[in-house]
C-alpha cells in the first residue's frame, strides 16, 4: 500500500504564504509522498516560487512536482524549477523518478502537458504555422510523458503514477464549459498513459471540473486542482495488485 498525497493549483504568492503549512506539517500521518500538479505560483515569478519553496520544503515526505501554465507566465520556468530543486522539491519535465516507500517503489513520471482537446474534437497540425506549433507542443509533451513512463518498468517500480498539469481526459473536466476543453487538456496524454501500464494519473488545471475519471484504456484519473478537492491535499491509497508479467508495456 502506497499513500499518494496530491494537490494542484495552489497558486502561491505572498498573500497565501503559510496557509497550507499547518496541514502539511502533519502530512506523514496521511501520505508517503506529496505530488504537486502544477500552477504552484500565481504569476510565475521567482518571488512566488520562493513562497512555494518555503511552503513545501522540509516536509516529512518527498515532494515531486510539475509546473503549470501560471508557472510559465513570467517566462522563467527553468529558474523556478531550479529554485525548487535547491529546496528539495523535484520538478519533473518529461522525466521519471522512483521513490522507495515502506519497502515498495513508487514511480512518478511527470510533464506539464498542454491543450489540444480530446479525440474527435481536437486540434490538428494543419494550416497556419501557429496551429502546427500548438499541436506540436501537445504531441511533444505526450511523447516525453510516454518515454518517462516507459522507463518505469515493473522491475523498477511497483506502482506508477503519471503527473501532469493539463488533463489527459475529458471525464474530469465535467463542470467546465465544453467549449474550453481544448484549452484544458489533450487526449494524447491519455494515449501515453494507456500505452505504458500506468496505475494512476493525476492532474490539475480544471478548477470547475470534477475529481474522478478514467482513461479510454481504463486507468484511473484524478483531478486534484485545489478548488476541486477543497483540501490541502487528497490521499489515494494505491495497492500494487498486478504481477509484473500482467503489465502491458510498450516503448513504441
Amino acid at each position, binding site marked *: 500500500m502506497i*499513500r499518494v498525497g496530491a494537490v494542484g493549483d495552489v497558486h502561491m504568492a505572498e498573500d497565501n504564504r503559510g496557509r497550507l503549512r499547518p496541514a502539511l506539517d502533519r502530512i506523514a500521518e496521511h501520505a508517503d509522498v506529496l505530488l504537486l500538479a502544477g500552477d504552484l505560483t500565481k*504569476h510565475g515569478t521567482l518571488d512566488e516560487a520562493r513562497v512555494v519553496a518555503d511552503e513545501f520544503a522540509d516536509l516529512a515526505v518527498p515532494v515531486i512536482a510539475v509546473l503549470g501554465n501560471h508557472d510559465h507566465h513570467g517566462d522563467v520556468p527553468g529558474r523556478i524549477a531550479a529554485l525548487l530543486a535547491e529546496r528539495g522539491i523535484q520538478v519533473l519535465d518529461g522525466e521519471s523518478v522512483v521513490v522507495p516507500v515502506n519497502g515498495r517503489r513508487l514511480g512518478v513520471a511527470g510533464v506539464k502537458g498542454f491543450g489540444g482537446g480530446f479525440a474527435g474534437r481536437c486540434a490538428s497540425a494543419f494550416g497556419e504555422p501557429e496551429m502546427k506549433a500548438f499541436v506540436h507542443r501537445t504531441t511533444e509533451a505526450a511523447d516525453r510523458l510516454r518515454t518517462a513512463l516507459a522507463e518505469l518498468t515493473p522491475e523498477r517500480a511497483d506502482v506508477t503514477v503519471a503527473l501532469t498539469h493539463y488533463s489527459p481526459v475529458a471525464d474530469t473536466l465535467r463542470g467546465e464549459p465544453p467549449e474550453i476543453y481544448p484549452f484544458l487538456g489533450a487526449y494524447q496524454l491519455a494515449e501515453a498513459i494507456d500505452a505504458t501500464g500506468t*496505475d494512476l494519473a493525476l492532474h490539475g488545471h480544471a478548477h470547475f471540473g470534477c475529481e474522478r475519471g478514467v482513461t479510454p484504456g481504463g486507468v484511473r484519473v484524478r483531478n486534484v486542482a*485545489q478548488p476541486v478537492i477543497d483540501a490541502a491535499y*487528497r490521499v489515494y491509497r*494505491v495497492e500494487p495488485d498486478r504481477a509484473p508479467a500482467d503489465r502491458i508495456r510498450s516503448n513504441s
Partner: protein
Amino acid sequence: MSESESCAPEYLVARVRRALAEDPRTAELGVLVDVRGDRLVLGGSVATERRRADLTAVLRAALPDVPVHNDVRVVIVDGPDGHEELR
C-alpha cells in the same frame, strides 16, 4: 472598458473574463462570470480573501456603474478528510 456597460452581455462577459485573467492584480482564469439582469455575477473559488476582494476592486475600477455580485468563495485548505482506496 467603460463602453462595455452598454454592449451585449456576451461581449461584456468576454471582456470581464479577459480583464480578470490579464490584470496582474487578479490573474484569475478560474472565475465564472455571468450577467444576470443589470449586474455581473462572479462564481468559483480563489486562494485568499484578499484575492476575492481584488476581483471586485478590478471590476469596480473598470465598470464603476455595473453592480457586481461577488459569490466567489475562498478555497478550503484543511488536512485531508479520509482517503480513496484504489485497487
